[in-house]
């Protein structure tokens, strides 16, 4: 997948004030890494869900998809819906999947909805 293909995701959010998304090919260091930033609310989710699913469906690189949520400070139900759609698309392609480093507020929502196991949450934050 070319840089231009990956760049479509970033371009789709460049006019959004409180949200940004970008996709990177990290090769064997993580495969397709989708980095989100800001408020993953309904508008943001609607703008990026189909693009993310399409990226995963067409991904031909290292067989892994990771969502970097370290810079997401708020997530709505549509945001979680986007993550589950991505998870399903990754499963269909036989790709490994993880959601990495969610902030406590985001992790709390995922826990309240019982989605942590389904979304393979990983955290690299050290305990204080």
């Amino acid at each position: 997948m070319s840089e231009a293909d990956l760049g479509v995701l970033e371009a789709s959010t460049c006019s959004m004030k409180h949200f940004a998304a970008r996709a990177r090919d990290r090769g064997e260091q993580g495969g397709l890494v989708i980095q989100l930033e800001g408020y993953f609310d309904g508008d943001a989710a609607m703008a990026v869900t189909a693009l993310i699913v399409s990226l995963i469906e067409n991904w031909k690189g290292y067989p892994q998809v990771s969502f970097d949520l370290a810079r997401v400070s708020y997530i709505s139900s549509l945001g979680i819906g986007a993550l589950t759609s991505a998870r399903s698309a990754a499963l269909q392609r036989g790709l490994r999947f993880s959601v990495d480093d969610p902030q406590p507020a985001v992790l709390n929502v995922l826990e309240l909805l019982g989605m942590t196991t389904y979304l393979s949450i990983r955290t690299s934050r050290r305990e204080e």
Partner: protein
Amino acid sequence: MQPDERSREQLVDSLQRSEARLRALGEESQDMILVLDPAGTILDVNRAGVELLGGEDPSALVGRPEQELWSNPADHEVFMRLLRENGRVKNFEVILVRRDGGTVFGLQSATVVRGAGGEVAEIHSMVVDITPRIRDAQALWKANIQLAEANQRLKESQAMMVQQEKLASIGQLAAGIAHEINNPLGFLKSNYSTLRRYLQRVEEFLSAVVGRDSEGLARAQEEYRIGHILGELGLILEDCDTGFRRIAQIVLTLRNFSRIDSEAARAPFDINAGIQSALTVAHNEVAFVAEVALDLGKVPLVECVGGEILQVFLNILINAAQAIKSQQRSCPGKITIRSGTDNGRVWAEVEDDGPGIPADIQSRIFDPFFTTKPVGQGTGLGLSISYDIIVQHHGGSLTVRSAPGQGSCFRIELPLLPPRRSAD
């Protein structure tokens, strides 16, 4: 009463009625209505709001920071920031904590009300309970992921079944394959003995000619038949080449056949060469029960997983041979294999003059585990897997024409470029 006084009384009455109407509207609302001060402290809350949080008395909420009601205080900061920036927020998803510790999912909208000097005087806010909707969505998310997981497991088991069926076919054909390898191996062994014998003769010749003159050399050459040996060597090596090629071809066919195929294995494939490979592998199964007639047309290469297509040819070819064999006839049967192109698709047919398939089971022959063979002789997966390979994996078709007593003809059609295997 003076007109001014009457007018004022009417105005007061109108205002009182308006206030009562608005208060009733707030109190009777099914949704939570909140009035906050600029810092987010609750100034007023309606009955629906109190009930939503599992309380009984509004006074338990009034005076508390709204943030305390939120499951994620950090979300409240986001909410207030958006409110400060835009003067209003619409449908912000919140998670509220009930008095009993339960959670309520809501959509909160709010508007800043400004005083005469433009300063923020109050925040008017409404929360719609969307808990049932979120619970439904939650169930749907989990169901979708579980479905995708089940689908993935099914694909893995299917791939394993295909591989097991392949291995079963190879096991079934092992004797024939051994025979196919043994045949060239036989003449390679014989050639090897001859070469050793000739080498010994050449060594003897070389020892014998030491110190001889040209006349003696010529005599020795004749005596040891060196000219004959040199002439034979070329033929023997040519013969060995053929033997090695035949063994290598069988090994290559087996390797292609037994490979665990993947999407990456798609490549241009020669259907006619595939038919020849299947005939090589199944030779011993077919050769003693039927004569094979080939009527192969000129066909373009097809983008496919070659090992899978080979497996289909092999399944159908072995079925044809076994059908003929089941009749225990005195003379060999006939299997005709044709290929060609039609409307941008490559087709191949395998026709036998066996007993044919009864009409009442023709619709079931592609079902998994359906077999008419005796127990232990068929898994009932061969045609099912063949159908899956041709139709699901390659977007082609696999059909049969058959009538009892008139044999069967299986027809495979493949598009030159099959659809990508993404959701299978």
